[in-house]
């Protein structure tokens, strides 16, 4: 257990965040984009919990992480509703078809 330091957690978090960024920027599927956002939020959660433990066994970081999870749930509910409406509007799930902000 001693081999597991803060750096491991930060590495995991960074990889998870990078995966999320790539998912958000590269995936065409709107649901995929939302999943990418969730990944980024959870990468941040891992950082919060890891630093909380590392800086002296407080619960502050864990409490923040719980807030973030709640926020992610609320955000997902709203975002899914938006995606559903956009799908009805554009008859497509691909974010590349939502080009009404062009020019």
């Amino acid at each position: 257990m001693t081999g597991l330091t803060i750096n491991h957690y930060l590495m995991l978090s960074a990889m998870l965040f990078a995966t999320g960024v790539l998912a958000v920027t590269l995936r065409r599927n709107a649901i995929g984009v939302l999943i990418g956002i969730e990944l980024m939020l959870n990468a941040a959660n891992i950082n919060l919990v890891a630093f909380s433990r590392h800086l002296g066994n407080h619960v502050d970081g864990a409490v923040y992480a719980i807030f973030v999870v709640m926020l992610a749930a609320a955000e997902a509910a709203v975002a899914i509703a938006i995606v559903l409406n956009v799908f009805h509007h554009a008859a497509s799930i691909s974010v590349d078809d939502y080009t009404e902000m062009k020019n």
Partner: protein
Amino acid sequence: MPTGVLLSLVILAMPMLSALVIAAFKKQLGTKADAVGIGTMGVALACAVYMALNHATIAGTGYVFEWFSVAGTSWKIGIGLDGLTLAMLVVVTLVSFLVHLFSKGYMHGDSRYEDFYRWLGLFTFSMIGLVISDNLITLFVMWEIMGLASYKLIGHYFQKQSAYLACKKAFMTTRVGDVGMFLAMLALYTSTGSLRFEEIFAKLGDVPSSTITWIALGLFMGAAGKSAQFPLHVWLPDAMEGPTPVSALIHAATMVAAGVYLIGRMYTLIVLSPMALLVIAVVGAFTAIFAASIAFTATDIKKVLAYSTISQLGFMFTALGVGSNFAWQAGLFHLVTHAFFKACLFLGSGSVIHACHHEQDMTRMGGLWKKLPITGATYLVACLSIAGTPFVTAGFYSKDQILASLWAGGHTSSVYYGIFWVLALTAAMTAFYMFRSFWLTFFGKPRDAHVYEHAHESPATITIPLIVLAALAIVAGFGWKDAFLPAEGAETYVKFANSFTHEDPVWHHAHGFALAVSAVIWTLGVGLSWFCYMTATGATARKRARELIAPLYLAASAKYWIDEFIEVVIIRTTGIVALLSAWIDRDAIDGFVDATGSVGMKTSAASGVADIQIVDGAVDGTGSLAWGGGGILSRIQSGKIRHYLFGAVAVTALFAVVVLYMSRS
């Protein structure tokens, strides 16, 4: 508001009402328009007579109100009633009423019957407004309305070329005089600051005498135009183109009376300038004898009367040119008596013309006495009056007083003795040519059987006015003049150069002398005309005399070529000046203007190029730079969310790298 003012407003409103009602309900009224005209004038006449009977309380009243006020100057107008106004009101309403009545018979069947009555109403309105005005502004307005109404009435038969030329001539000639009058009004306002008679007269002491002379001459110019004095008399004979009732109205009560009235009204000013008085007297006397000599040769019955009017107006002006109180009274008294006998003569000639089916040439009449007894008798009475038959006629009293005042005026300036003899000669000529027209029309053998056969006495609407006027031509001479126009009491509203009393030896002597001369010249004039036209020896003597003075006779019958002179010298010269002015305008002034214009155009063309190339270039350049830049930048706005996000992440990452790199050192 005093009773007199209210009544005068009623009198003023009546003819206007008639004109408006006839204009508004022309279709509905038809030939009933005459009833409107006669009825309203009857009311006006009744009011005027009431005012005249109560002149003692009414004379001297007036009413003034502020018309408008501009730039701190208050313009007041109003009504002023004095003896002169009351006398004029009676004459104007009476003659106008009789003319309205006369026209019912005379104009019967005319295609523009209603229009005729309409303009008669306006004509009368303007004259009434003129005599009740207490200021020059409304007087001048009425003066001009009268010009318009006379234009319409003289041109009543405008289908005839001579009629429309005549009405144009009357309008234009009087306009020439109006220029002088208007300048005089401007000068009066500049020097006294008011155009109300009272205020003008109160301030005359401060006005330099040369200015007064110019003002007086300007006013006389206006009066000469309206009252047909030489050389502005040319319109009046031509105005005979109008229907005969109009001629009667113009010659008796309105138009020509206006000029004499103006001088009589402004007398307080006129007498301050001996120079102006002399000009008025000389022009009047010259006009009197000049017009009388033309009347000798006229064969048109209306032309004889027209020239006699000019001549009689000359008498009035001559009297007004003396400056004494009796002369003022005589001039205006003659205006009144002349109104009656001249209206009677004109309406009488109208009756003759009506009876002879619009034949106006006396050489084709003759012997009409039996056919037209009433017309003939009234014409004779009026002839006796204008010829100045001693003691029984009104014309005698007024003309005698004119001569007497001239003789009395000779005491101050001997020029008036000369003028006296000129007028005495003219009076004899008047008696001669008036009776000439009487003999030619009513006596002798009928010279045209056709005209004679068809002649018939006119209806009552024509003969009643004749009888009334003939009666007035006799009785108007007795008594009343001192009530209305008192020679010795008029100083309350008129000032004179010198005054006499009835007992004055100078006046007494002049009066006796003039009386004797009048009697002699009357006998001479009437007797000579009887001899020349009613006896066989006289006729041959007349023919020989005519051959003897053939050139003079020719000149007189050609009206001394005054019309031709005006045509050639004034109208042609004006035409040439106009052509010259037109040439200067077109070729010289227009050339300069055009050159200026083309320089402007060239300059603006150059400026236009600079504008398009440089200024617009800069503006357009800015615009197209923004446009092009926007086009390039808009490409990166693809609308694809992924691109935006990628951009955001990339920039954030770059920022993070930079911050980390900076924080290391």
